[in-house]
């Protein structure tokens, strides 16, 4: 296999290098890629969409159709992970910790479950006492991370960022909660059902905003059809983009959490990092 790999790599690499012979220089301002469509976008994006970040303008408007499917890809990944790993059977073995004394009990028969309350808590198999410093720091950090995520979504029109990045950051704040405390706390706070609905609903916000334009007499995704719904018709495209970015953010945050929870608990949603 190593030899075969080497031969394939040499062949493909040779082909690719042969192709680079005719490339324009790196950073050449007069290369076809930097002059043909790029100029149209740079010169007209702000005037047509009122969004200073040209990348966002192209992402959510000129090529918003791509981005819609990109969100669908993310939804699909979340669904695939759920479908592949989710296992509704409960583990047979359980571990409990007697809180006042710290004694750990190993219950092998799932029918003899202990009642979890003030005396006993349900713990993971590889349980280690959680660190006070990590817990406290994360508890302080998580709200700020989430606010930052919202800022990234909302400010995507003016600065780098947007729905996808914001969604990932929000999702990682949820993951941080699971890592610093316990997976059970995350699963208890945000039910699987909520995550599942958010993932589909986020994409639906995008497709919905895009589809409403059709009965309004414009083509799919043409935000200018939404003028009557917004308070500021001059910025209708920017507002439409904000709407779809929020949808993307919701979907991405939910999917990131779904993937993480399913991988780390092997689909059982009970214990994990």
């Amino acid at each position, binding site marked *: *296999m*190593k030899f*075969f*790999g*080497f031969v*394939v*790599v040499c062949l*493909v*690499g040779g082909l*690719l*290098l042969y192709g*680079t012979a005719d*490339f324009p*220089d*790196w*950073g*050449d*301002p007069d*290369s076809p*890629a*930097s*002059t043909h*469509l*790029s*100029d149209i*976008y*740079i*010169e007209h*994006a*702000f*005037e047509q969409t009122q969004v*200073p*970040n*040209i*990348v966002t303008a*192209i*992402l959510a408007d000129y*090529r918003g159709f*791509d*981005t819609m499917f*990109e969100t669908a*890809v*993310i939804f*699909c*990944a*979340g669904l*695939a*992970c759920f479908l*592949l*790993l989710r296992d509704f059977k409960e583990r047979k073995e359980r571990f409990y910790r007697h809180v006042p004394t710290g004694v750990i009990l190993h219950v092998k028969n799932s029918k003899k479950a202990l009642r979890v309350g003030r005396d006993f808590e349900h713990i993971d198999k590889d349980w280690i006492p959680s660190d006070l410093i990590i817990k406290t720091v994360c508890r302080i950090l998580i709200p700020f991370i989430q606010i930052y995520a919202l800022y990234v979504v909302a400010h995507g029109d*003016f*600065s*780098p960022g947007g729905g*996808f990045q914001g969604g990932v950051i929000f999702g990682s704040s949820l993951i941080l909660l699971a890592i610093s405390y316990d997976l059970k706390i995350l699963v208890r706070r945000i039910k699987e059902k909520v995550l599942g609905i958010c993932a589909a609903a986020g994409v639906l916000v995008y497709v919905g905003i895009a589809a409403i334009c059709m009965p309004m007499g414009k083509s799919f995704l043409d935000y200018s059809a939404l003028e009557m719904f917004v308070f500021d018709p001059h910025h209708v495209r920017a507002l439409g983009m904000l709407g779809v970015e929020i949808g993307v953010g919701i979907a991405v945050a939910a999917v990131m959490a779904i*993937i993480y929870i*399913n*991988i780390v608990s*092997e689909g059982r949603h009970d214990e994990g990092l």
Partner: protein
Amino acid sequence: MGMTDIIPLIVAKYNYWLFVVLMMIGLYAMIAKNNLIKKLVGMNIFQTAIILFYVSIGYKSGATLPIIQNVHEGHGHAAIHAADYINPLPHVLMLTAIVVSVATFGVAMALAVKIYQRYHTLEEDELRMRLSEK
């Protein structure tokens, strides 16, 4: 050809050559590595190398970030020159490509976990042995 001629040539093209090298590292890992997770890492290197390639296409010397400056000051739209801003289109395409690659990566990781649940190994030769035993 003296040194003065070679350096501009290298400067003009090295980015593309190194992207090919990086991509081939990924491809080699995908084909030749035995461990499935290593192969996945190779896959990701392969994909990011393509993203690097696209981002390199978009680079324009002497230009700045593709975010229009001073929008709140100037009321007219006259002041925007295409030569001042980097080509934004490859960036948009690559945002999509990154999303696609992370989606694939997540699904692949889920599969790796599932394979391990079943066979308790991620080495390809051992997997092949387990499969032929049945």
